[in-house]
């Protein structure tokens, strides 16, 4: 270091020399060197990312215009390059915006909006254009036709990396058979090694966008994914930021941009979920941080030798005896009425007493009189010596100057607080010594800027902490006892708790500008205040129904389930987690289950291992849900697909390429709950399937054993073989009584189904004993309550080969016990779970 400095001294021109080589870098140039950050790190991956960016854009564009998306993706070999064509039926782009959308990085409508959408930064598609031009040197060819336009616009453009502006080489009008939409053609150096990821991306996109029609044509294969629904996702609304999720820089920017004059107005205007009350709470929190609180001391008790009344009358001159007495009485009464009183509260008391006496007695109580009164009372409260400087105050305080060692009122007050706050194990002596030291800190306190003024005991939390720490440190040092962090914290909170928020007006918005500390206090205040969770109309979950529909559309499975959680908040951004599971059927039975990850309806195909979703799936004990899980942790095995969708106004990704959801505990918790919800249905399905398998196995074994037994019996008895059909029928053709439950918020829908597989008509007497009151029973069922149990009686007649069902609603924690009569036990199978 020293040698370097000496060099600097010797050659003073080096800084200038160095400065010459410093220059601004355009974002486009930056990207050129850091392609991997956006997912263009290799030819294989670059192609997938380009498809992904183009398709995401196309879906967003169509949905925003309430058009059911119809997207065509084609990849073809073009000499040394690959040609990517993506065509959509979106609203099209105007001649003015089109070049910027494709030819300028960080241009977009989404970045500032708090609304769920696929793209956010405005990097994606222009990055694809840039990647294409960097690798093939060819411009992007874009055709776009807006709705109702008679002709389409055709552009050929590249990104000017120096300026981060589009550089248009061809601009003309052309004809296009689509009535509206956009088509982009990119040529790039690429390869199809990531074919699987490409297919996954398109297929997964089709799963979570059942309202979209997708077509992919690549050199080897051709897929079409038709719509499963004509229902567009619900339109999202943009919301203002939530006070819990904003950072200091953002708030400072908002402060300089707002039209509001007052902080309260600013808070209500610029944030979601902040009304007058919340704004006031935030401002109170701000005041505590910015101005500090004022200590409230106890008013004098009767046994204390303090005569406030005469002190006040002594301090009040030339106001007539009646008025003076009335003034003194009003103040003393008001002070005595309070448990504790702070300086600003005393000011208010004195003002109100003065105003009352003024109007009653017609005597004017000017500022000086009021100040004197406040002064003498406050001195008495804090045991301060009389102030010689103020003349009138002399002799007014009943303060025993001889007995300087007598204990200050503050000590007694602080002792009581500290004694309550610390553990009973602490010695009284020690607490007392501590209280004396703490009181001394208060007594030494001086007003900032006016050292001579009587202190108001106005302290910030931080300053109070320094008082407590100092007093505790001294106590530890001199009394040789420990005064630990917990005790300090307790005392601090006890004292802070009795202190009063000051009524000072917060600074105006313009005063905040440039006052970083004040703004920081405001942000802290916003975080501390309880504020309702942000609204969720900015989110568009896929919904349970459509998740199942999407899975059914793309996977030939035996079972599908799905769950959509309620919205939660992380960092001011609301989010919703959804999960879906498909099981069995044509799904791959070997190896582990597939995990499909989605963020805002966009499939995440890379960095599976870095994603919170994968972590959560691995952490779940899948054996509980009937799936094979080697070692009891990790991905489950078997023919299953597990999908998770995180929808948020701001999905936290691990990197700009948006491949993996970051490990945010609030989101992980919701992911887990969503998966478990869907997995519970899988479990009951698998249980049922297992019991059916056992039944089939039994039938197979019995179907073999019984004929053998019959043959043997015939041999032993030397008779013809008996007819065993009836006996077998008896064993096999059971009447099945089954219960199924469907959760429905805090209640559950119960269905008891009777399935008559026998060849005779059956009359059953079913009694379902329920631990909570069932509702919505059909007419043919009766319910009787006994000792907190409800006996639901139902007597259906079920003909051969027919089904019957009993349905009702009951609280979700209810327990059941099913009793079935009227059918011979040999013919009855009851599945009650």
């Amino acid at each position, binding site marked *: 270091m020293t040698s370097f400095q000496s060099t600097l001294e010797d050659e003073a021109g080096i800084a200038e020399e160095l400065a010459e080589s410093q220059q601004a870098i355009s974002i486009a140039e930056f990207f050129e060197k850091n392609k991997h950050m956006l997912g263009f790190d290799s030819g294989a991956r670059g192609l997938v990312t380009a498809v992904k960016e183009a398709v995401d854009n196309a879906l967003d564009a169509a949905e925003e215009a309430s058009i059911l998306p119809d997207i065509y993706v084609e990849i073809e070999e073009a000499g040394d390059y690959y040609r990517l064509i993506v065509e959509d039926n979106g609203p099209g782009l105007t001649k003015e915006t089109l070049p910027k959308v494709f030819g300028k990085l960080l241009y977009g409508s989404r970045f500032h909006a708090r609304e769920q959408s696929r793209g956010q930064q405005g990097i994606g598609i222009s990055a694809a254009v840039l990647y294409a031009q960097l690798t093939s040197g060819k411009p992007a060819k874009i055709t776009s036709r807006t709705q109702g336009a008679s002709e389409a616009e055709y552009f050929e453009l590249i990104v000017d990396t120096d300026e981060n502006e589009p550089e248009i080489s061809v601009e003309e009008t052309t004809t296009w058979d689509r009535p509206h939409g956009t088509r982009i053609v990119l040529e790039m150096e690429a390869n199809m090694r990531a074919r699987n990821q490409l297919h996954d991306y398109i297929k997964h996109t089709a799963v979570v966008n059942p309202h979209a029609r997708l077509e992919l044509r690549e050199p080897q294969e051709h897929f079409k994914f038709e719509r499963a629904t004509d229902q567009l996702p619900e339109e999202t609304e943009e919301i203002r930021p939530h006070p819990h999720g904003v950072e200091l820089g953002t708030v400072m920017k908002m402060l300089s941009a707002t039209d509001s004059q007052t902080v309260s107005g600013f808070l209500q205007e610029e944030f979601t979920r902040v009304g007058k009350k919340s704004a006031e709470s935030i401002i109170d929190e701000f005041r505590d941080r910015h101005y500090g609180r004022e200590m409230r001391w106890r008013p004098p008790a009767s046994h204390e030798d303090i005569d406030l009344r005469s002190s006040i009358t002594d301090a009040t001159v030339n106001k007539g005896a009646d008025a003076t007495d009335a003034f003194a009485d009003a103040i003393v009464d008001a002070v005595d009425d309070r448990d504790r009183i702070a300086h600003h509260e005393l000011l208010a008391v004195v003002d109100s007493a003065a105003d009352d006496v003024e109007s009653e007695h017609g005597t004017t109580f000017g500022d000086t009189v009021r100040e004197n009164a406040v002064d003498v009372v406050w001195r008495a409260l804090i045991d301060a010596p009389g102030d010689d400087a103020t003349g009138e105050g002399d002799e007014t305080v009943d303060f025993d100057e001889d007995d300087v060692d007598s204990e200050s009122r503050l000590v007694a007050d602080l002792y009581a607080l500290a004694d309550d706050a610390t553990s009973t194990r602490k010695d009284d002596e020690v607490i007392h010594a501590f209280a004396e030291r703490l009181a001394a800190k208060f007594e030494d306190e001086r007003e900032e800027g006016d050292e001579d003024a009587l202190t108001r005991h106005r302290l910030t939390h931080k300053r109070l902490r320094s008082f407590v720490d100092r007093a505790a440190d001294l106590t530890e040092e001199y009394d040789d006892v420990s005064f630990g962090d917990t005790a300090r914290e307790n005392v601090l909170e006890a004292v802070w708790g009795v202190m009063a928020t000051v009524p000072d007006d917060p600074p105006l918005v313009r005063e905040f500008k440039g006052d970083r500390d004040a703004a920081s206090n405001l942000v802290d205040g916003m975080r501390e205040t309880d504020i309702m969770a942000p609204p969720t109309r900015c989110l568009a979950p896929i919904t349970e129904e459509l998740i199942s529909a999407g899975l059914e559309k793309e996977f030939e499975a035996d079972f599908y389930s799905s769950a959509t959680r309620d919205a939660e908040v992380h960092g001011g951004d609301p989010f919703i987690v959804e999960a879906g599971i498909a099981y069995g059927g044509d799904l791959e039975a070997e190896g582990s289950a597939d995990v499909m990850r989605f963020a805002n309806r966009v499939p995440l195909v890379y960095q599976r291992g870095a994603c919170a979703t994968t972590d959560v799936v691995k952490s779940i004990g899948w054996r509980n849900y009937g799936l094979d899980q080697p070692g009891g942790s990790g991905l489950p095995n078997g023919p299953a697909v597990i999908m998770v969708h995180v929808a948020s106004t701001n999905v936290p990704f691990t990197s700009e390429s948006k491949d993996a959801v970051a490990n945010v505990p609030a989101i992980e918790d919701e992911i887990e709950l969503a998966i478990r919800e869907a997995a519970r249905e899988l479990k009951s399905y698998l249980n049922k399937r297992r019991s059916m398998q056992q039944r089939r*196995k*039994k039938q197979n*074994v*019995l179907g*073999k*054993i*019984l004929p*053998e*037994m*019959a043959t*043997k*019996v*015939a*041999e*032993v*008895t030397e*008779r013809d073989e*008996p*007819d*065993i*059909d*009836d*006996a077998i*029928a*008896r*064993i096999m053709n059971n009447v099945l009584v089954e219960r199924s439950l469907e959760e429905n918020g805090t209640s559950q829908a119960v269905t008891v189904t009777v399935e008559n597989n026998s060849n005779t008509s059956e009359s059953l007497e079913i009694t379902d004993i329920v631990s909570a009151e069932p509702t919505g029973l059909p007419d043919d069922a009766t319910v009787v309550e006994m000792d907190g149990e409800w006996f639901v009686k139902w007597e259906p007649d079920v003909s051969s080969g027919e089904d019957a069902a009993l349905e009702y609603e009951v609280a979700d924690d209810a327990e059941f016990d099913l009793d079935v009569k009227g059918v011979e036990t*040999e013919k009855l199978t009851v599945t009650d779970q």
Partner: protein
Amino acid sequence: MSADNDQQAREQLIDLAAQFYDQFELGEIPHMSVPTRTKNNIEYSEELNVWVYGDRESTRSANSVRGARKLLKAVYTIEFLADQLEQDRSSTLRELYYLSESWDNKEAQFNDQDESNGLIEDLEIVSGVTREDFHMRPEESGAKVMGPLRIREQTNRGDRDIHCQLDVGQGGYQIPNNPDTIEFLDNDAEFVLCVETGGMRDRLVENGFDEEYDALIVHLGGQPARATRRLTKRLHDELDLPVTVFADGDPWSYRIYGSVAYGSIKSAHLSEYLATPEAQYIGIQPADIVEYDLPTDPLSDSDINALESELEDPRFQTDYWEEQIELQLEIGKKSEQQSLAARGLDFVTDTYLPERLSEMGVL
């Protein structure tokens, strides 16, 4: 062991198979009910003075895979037994287990010998024919008798007349598996003395106790085989001899006495045929441990559990046994028969047995 007897046993077995046949024909699910063979399901028969099974039944039904397998095995076993009777052959329980390996149907083969033993017990109960009449033998042979008794045994090699003191060696006469093949010719016996351990039996024989007191010394050898119990019963019933049991002073020995006197839980269906309710217990009694100050071992946890379970066993619910068991639980000790040797080798024959037998009114 007449051919008639065999014929009858065979018919009863085939009737059982016919029962399954009829159940099939009627469209019923084939089933077979047998009394539950647990302690909770035995009760005292006033009429027979022995303990027999109560009313609780277990059903083997073809409604379940397990039940169907059991019944299939039962039918295969019935066929085997019927053939065995027809050919006048016999086999052991263990042979039956191995023999099932040769059956053409894998489902009918036994998994272990407990299963085949249990099935034979089922068939005994349901058909009312004893195992011996099925020509099924247990592995262990019956125990030995020594004393002034002359018998005639029908053997495969013709009838043999044997005197159980004069014609036998130090080991005594071997009781055959089916003691009903024995005919009692004549005897000079005064009583039957059943002895639990081989060591004590040898001591009594060496000391000439059987000669001196005209005792028929029957070696039980732990839990007595059916043949031993059957012979004891016949000695009591046919020769009108008092029966006494001399065993160790611990809960397991009381159970040995219990099975001689009252029948065992597993063969309660044969109690009438095997049990000798008049049998008296000599000792070692817990009272003897105190009276003769015998060397002892402390009761183990399993001993205590066994004693407590005996207090609930209907077979031991008499004043005598309750008193003795409670005494033993109180002193917390047990003694073996051979602990009497602490007083000298002749103490048992010169002092203990004569004293106890006189007390009991046998001598």
